[in-house]
């Protein structure tokens, strides 16, 4: 196509010119590297590689699915500030997921779905985009629909409180990669928990309506809370937030899905995976 210039061509002609000069400066360019490039991924002695891999996969799936859910808030949050905050929480979780899935793949490559010969899809993407719902190991709690802002706040609070407590313990795990992911995660999850905790308090002390929504949303989350495991420290923190907010722990029976996922996961995955699955040879 012939180019028409009304003046001497200069760098201001295209708003995107700067992005195209050097591919390496476009953060999501073609060169998406192995997130563990340069990291020693030898499984330490005395650790079962398959067990370590499935454990990392579980932790990675929790982060990946909640990240995907929270991304649905983009451009829909109550205001710009909370929109960016939720996107940032989602980005942190995606970063954790990427490292954990890559760690799982490096520890036990047999877990990674087979792709066509010569596919450029890296192992962590193969795990994220080419597994079916039944192969995901995340807790049902993270796949539930967002609900309204109050429900999302309650869910982040519960999830981040348990995960922060777990990650603090994982900072002394024998596997150096998992230990490092946990150490970084602790800083991120502290922010997630306190961000959600502050909003929890604000909504609890807001209007009758905000309080009603907070309680209703928390009840839906609470029924799946047991999936996150027994953790006295996490429970203590949650009790503290509830007491400060003057909200009683929801009186709901735990919902057991018998190890299966809810129908919500397959819909979430359909949206998340459709493009990658149509282009297994695609380069992004």
């Amino acid at each position, binding site marked *: 196509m012939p180019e028409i210039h009304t003046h001497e061509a200069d760098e201001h002609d295209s708003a995107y010119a700067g992005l195209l000069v050097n591919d390496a400066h476009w953060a999501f360019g073609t060169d998406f590297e192995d997130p563990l*490039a340069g990291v020693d991924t030898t499984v330490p002695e005395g650790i079962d590689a398959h067990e370590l891999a499935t454990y990392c996969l579980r932790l990675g799936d929790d982060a990946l699915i909640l990240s995907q859910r929270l991304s649905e808030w983009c451009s829909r949050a109550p205001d710009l500030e909370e929109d960016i905050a939720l996107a940032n929480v989602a980005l942190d979780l995606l*970063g954790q997921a990427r490292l954990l899935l890559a760690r799982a793949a490096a520890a036990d490559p047999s877990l990674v779905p087979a792709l066509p010969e010569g596919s450029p899809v890296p192992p962590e993407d193969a795990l994220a985009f080419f597994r079916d719902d039944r192969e995901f190991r995340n807790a049902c709690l993270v796949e539930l629909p967002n609900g309204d802002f109050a429900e999302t706040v309650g869910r982040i609070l519960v999830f981040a409180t348990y995960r922060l407590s777990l990650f603090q313990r994982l900072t002394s795990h024998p596997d150096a990669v998992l230990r490092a992911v946990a*150490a970084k995660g602790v800083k991120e999850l502290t922010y997630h928990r306190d961000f959600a905790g502050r909003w929890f308090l604000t909504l609890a002390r807001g209007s009758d309506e905000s309080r009603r929504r907070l309680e209703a949303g928390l009840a839906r989350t609470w029924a799946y809370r047991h999936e996150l495991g027994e953790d006295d420290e996490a429970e203590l923190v949650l009790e503290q937030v509830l007491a400060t907010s003057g909200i009683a722990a929801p009186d709901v029976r735990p919902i057991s899905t018998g190890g299966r996922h809810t129908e919500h996961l397959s819909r979430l995955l359909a949206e998340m995976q459709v493009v990658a699955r149509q282009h297994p040879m695609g380069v992004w």
Partner: protein
Amino acid sequence: MVPAVLDQRRVERARAVAATVTDPELPMLTLHDLGVLREVALDEDGGVVVAITPTYSGCPAMATMRDDLLHRLQAAGFAEARVRVALEPAWTTDWITPEGRAALAEAGISPPGPAPRREGPVALSLSPTRRAVRCPRCGADDVALTSEFGSTACKAMYRCRDCLEPFDHLKEI
């Protein structure tokens, strides 16, 4: 000259090259100033190995830093240079050098204060984050937080109540 001295000079030269690479999102900071550049050494085959520690796990700038380091080292004649990622200990804003802090302030970004110390369980905080922040333009300490996130996720946005200018503060982690 004995080989050890040559090796040492090569490492020093590689360190000098690596130290000039800048952060893509904070271009006033070199990777050395940022504290991301942890070590420059030689492997068994005499190749240069540069160790870096990532800042944030979701940070899109990390791949660029790695690319830039390799390109710069290769252009300087270190064809076999490698980048090793050291995940431990985790990066903290405490590693930003005094020169780096001065460069941030010079560019209108308020540098981070001391990172929170963590011993035992992380205490719950239900009140807004309080930081001792000064306006990088006029030095006033009468400032107001306008947003926990600024131009990038690692910065918060403040407004100076004295000179009324808005500015970014690099959050301490």
